[in-house]
């Protein structure tokens, strides 16, 4: 490994000279790190879709996909090949530039957020000291992909779906943002690394259990998952905002949705479930990244479990839940957290 590094350094220096090589090397190294981060995420996404079909199949006493490869392990590849080979249909009267920009604007924010996710104290792509704010601000961009796709499709179903979806995403973003504030108050830092480090004694889920519950329900709504999948309520809106998308531009929406689900599962385990910290001290010999993956994997399972269990919400019930139930509870919990910190003399 060391020899390889020296080989690259010496040849690069000879090729570009001492002025340009360090700059080019920084660029190259960052690019390699990004690829090393995105590839596992994408593999996770593709196998999460298979896991979803298998788990929901088991819950509904079905078999699920089992034709492509042993136990259906090749199913994600079959799906990908199918989506790539299909014809891309552009609806008449659509705004082409916006139409093609929209799916990538859904996927790109979902991938951008992975930059600040720490997998262990050392394993982090960009150690930003406002990590959690970065995640919140980038996640607020996801709504543009939805709005643009609905508007540019020149279809009533897509437009109605995008309006619903945007309203839902904005509402639950507020609820989600307020559940994160007590976490930040307890740890006294906006950096995800410090937030995990501050849970060394006790995980945030214990003092902030209601916040964790609200966080999880909010992200289910934020990622447009069942039982809050009103944007694509197929009985009334065909498929919501991506009704008119086909082939890979349709696939990009799906990749974005699943990447988002995995991301919020990781964030939930980092903020509330102690991240890479083991549940009991003597289990510390197991690497932190395995603990983190197990916790995130559990939350990802709950996503599917909820989908197989609950019927769809009605839109007015959804709005009522977000604004009239979650918002007051999380606002008052911020006050309670401040009071608790004051009483126990932490501030």
């Amino acid at each position, binding site marked *: 490994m060391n020899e390889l590094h020296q080989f690259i350094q010496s040849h690069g220096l000879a090729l570009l000279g001492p002025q340009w090589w360090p700059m080019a090397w920084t660029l190259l190294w960052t690019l390699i790190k990004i690829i090393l981060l995105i590839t596992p995420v994408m593999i996770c996404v593709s196998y999460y879709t298979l896991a979803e079909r298998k788990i929901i199949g088991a819950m509904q006493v079905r078999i699920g996909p089992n034709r492509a490869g042993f136990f259906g392990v090749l199913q994600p590849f079959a799906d990908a090949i199918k989506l790539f080979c299909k014809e891309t249909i552009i609806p008449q009267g659509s705004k082409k530039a916006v139409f093609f920009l929209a799916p990538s604007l859904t996927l790109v924010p979902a991938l951008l957020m992975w930059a600040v996710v720490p997998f262990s104290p050392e394993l982090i792509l960009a150690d930003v000291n406002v990590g959690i*704010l970065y995640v919140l601000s980038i996640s607020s961009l996801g*709504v543009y992909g939805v709005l643009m796709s609905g508007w540019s499709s020149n279809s009533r179903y897509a437009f109605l779906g995008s309006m619903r979806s945007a309203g839902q995403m*904005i509402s639950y973003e507020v609820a989600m943002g307020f559940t994160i504030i007590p976490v930040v108050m307890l740890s006294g830092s906006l950096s995800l690394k410090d937030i995990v480090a501050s849970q060394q004694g006790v995980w945030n889920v214990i003092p902030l259990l209601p916040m964790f519950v609200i966080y999880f329900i909010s992200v289910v709504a934020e990622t447009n998952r069942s039982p809050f999948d009103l944007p694509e309520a197929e009985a009334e809106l065909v498929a919501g905002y991506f009704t008119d998308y086909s082939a890979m531009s349709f696939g990009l929406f799906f990749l974005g949705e699943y990447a988002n689900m995995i991301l919020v599962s990781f964030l939930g385990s980092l903020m509330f479930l102690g991240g890479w910290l083991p549940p009991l001290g003597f289990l510390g010999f197991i690497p932190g990244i395995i603990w983190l993956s197990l916790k995130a994997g559990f939350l990802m399972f709950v996503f599917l479990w909820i989908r197989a269990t609950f019927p769809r919400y009605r839109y007015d019930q959804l709005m009522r839940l977000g604004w009239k139930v979650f918002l007051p509870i999380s606002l008052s919990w911020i006050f309670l957290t401040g009071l608790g910190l004051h009483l126990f003399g932490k501030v």
Partner: protein
Amino acid sequence: MVVDIIFYAFAAVTALSAVGVVSSRNQVHSVLFLILTFFSTAALFVLLEAEFLAALLVMVYMGAVAVLFLFVVMMLDMDATDLRQQAMNHLPTGILVGVVILVELVVVLSHAHSHGEHGAVATVSNTRAIGQTLYTQYLYPFELASLVLLVALVGAVVLTLRSRSKGAKRQNIGQQVARVSAETVQLVQRKSGEGA
């Protein structure tokens, strides 16, 4: 060096998309250009190591204000030519406002230069610094500003609140959940051929 290249790239995107806001024929495209302007401005803030301000700019302006703009513009079917005619009438006012902003900028910049304060001010944690300044030194102006926002909030609610007592149907979720089939379902026996 690299920072310079990045700065000019983002500054160019900011300026070009700002031109796009006023020059594009489609209003939705205008709003999308406005969003791009916000985003590249946030990137410029990051270059100044003011990542807290950048995150706030993206969250507040792109995550909330611009979404509202986009909502309204998408819902209203406005005629572009008519709007252009009206916009020409407001040209003198627009130029006046532009000149005032330019003069203000020049005054502020020349003032800052005379004190030698320019470029990036790298603080240890500017989030903490902003919080401490805001809640100690500028506490009263800050609270006053939040009061103004509260008044605006209440005003918006009052403006949109209509009394819908006439023939309005309201849903009471508690009632809906408490309903049982014995109260609502009625089994009626009818002789065939008699109808209801």
